[in-house]
């Protein structure tokens, strides 16, 4: 089948970009979306035009690298799927396909469809961990964890940090990402000692990075390739508010973005 692509092209961080149209004449329905772009890029290179830059790595839906908005939806039309596992059988011959990068102030475009997501790393640095040095742990089975809690924690831990939640949110909010980490650790007994501090510090860093606020529209959950529940955002709100208002924890002084 044939497709008409409209792709955001931007030379570098400083340049202004624009949408450019390309034909994708030989699309096999069994291809993945990224393989379709590979073929387009081979053609472009043959013609002496710069290929379209996009982040990708594992191509099996777990590394969280791939990041593009397809016809207005992060990761495209299939539910619970990353772009790398989106197959062309979900498109129809002659369709117009608009491909844009994640758009958020906190995710500046580096080139074409490639954005800088280091803000997520800084949110984790602010508290997305359990402080336990290597070698200091007790025997793993000394700490039973109810299966339901472990499973619930795992539901949150499934986040691959791709940033689709930010891309989908009309406010470019990172609530689902932050909530997933706060809940993953907060649901486990190991995560309790730092639970309050974690919530305060991670939210503070998230705000500093320039992400927007939550309007409870749940677009994030709708596009999340791991289908992480917005219930975790409620949980984060609860953790944050109770920590801020009722505990002695004030959080650490924030680190500025370098």
């Amino acid at each position, binding site marked *: 089948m044939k497709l008409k692509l*409209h792709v*955001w092209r931007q030379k570098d961080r400083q340049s202004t970009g624009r*949408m450019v149209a390309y034909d994708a004449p030989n699309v096999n329905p069994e291809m993945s979306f990224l393989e379709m772009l590979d073929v387009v890029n081979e053609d472009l290179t043959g013609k002496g035009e710069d290929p379209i830059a996009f982040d990708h790595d594992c191509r099996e839906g777990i590394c969280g690298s791939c990041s593009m*908005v397809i*016809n*207005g*939806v992060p990761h495209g039309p299939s539910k619970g799927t990353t772009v790398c596992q989106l197959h062309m059988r979900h498109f129809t011959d002659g369709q117009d396909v*608009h491909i*844009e990068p994640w*758009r*958020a*102030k*906190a995710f500046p475009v580096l080139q074409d469809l490639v954005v800088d997501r280091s803000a997520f790393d800084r949110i984790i640095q602010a508290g997305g961990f359990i402080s336990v040095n290597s070698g200091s742990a007790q025997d793993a089975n000394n700490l039973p964890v109810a299966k339901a809690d472990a499973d619930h924690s795992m539901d949150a831990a499934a986040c691959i940090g791709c940033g689709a939640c930010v891309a*989908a949110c*009309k*406010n*470019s*909010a990172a*609530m689902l990402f932050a909530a997933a980490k706060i809940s993953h650790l907060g649901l486990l007994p190991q995560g309790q000692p730092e639970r309050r501090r974690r919530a305060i510090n991670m*939210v*503070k860093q*998230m*705000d500093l990075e*320039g*992400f*927007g*606020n*939550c*309007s*409870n*529209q*749940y*677009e994030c*959950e*709708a*596009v999340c390739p791991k289908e992480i529940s*917005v*219930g975790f*955002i*409620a*949980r*984060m*709100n*609860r*953790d*944050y*508010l*109770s920590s*801020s*208002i009722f505990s002695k924890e*004030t*959080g650490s002084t924030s680190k500025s973005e370098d």
Partner: protein
Amino acid sequence: MGWLRQTTDSSIGGKLIVAVTGLAMVGFVVAHLSGNLLVFGGPQAVNSYAEGLRKLGALLWVARIGLLVMATLHIVFAIKLNLANRAARPQAYAVKTYRRASFASRSMLLTGLALLGYILFHLAHFTFRATSPELAALGEYDVYQMIVLSFQQPLIAGLYIVSMFLLGLHLSHGVSSLFQTLGFNHPKYRNLVGSIGPFLGVLLALGFSSIPAAVLFGLLK
């Protein structure tokens, strides 16, 4: 008090204030409607209710100031959050498709601002009676006549009905949403909570609109 500043400056703290003030105003709106519906009990019922309210004296002022503070905080924080939200996406998408967001949730700012405009008019009209000499001439507690005279004008009645439906739309998202903001979202109650907003929104819109409708249809005169 650093913690208070830190909390209210934060994204989640800001939402908390919008949610809590919104909840307080929902309480007011429900009470207001209950009072208004006394109009169906005839002039005596509604007028004596109004008189009773006025005679609360200092307590009335506490309520009024409280309401004013709630409304101001609600508006100020909603606008502040909204500006931050706009700043968070400097470059818009060429194509944007919504998967889940309801129409109500996407129009909160518009419905909110429209309601603010209407409330100002509403206060000028019914509370200060500054919009027409006819109302200004009525007795202090003759609320019944004021209602009937006003809503006999289709323009006033129409504006009121439209505004009450905007209120319903605003609350249909706002009320369900405030549970999430306050941290209550449990799979067992998710559907229930999700339907409280729309249910309350429709109920209030219909309740309020019943009065001008009744006047227009000549049931109240």
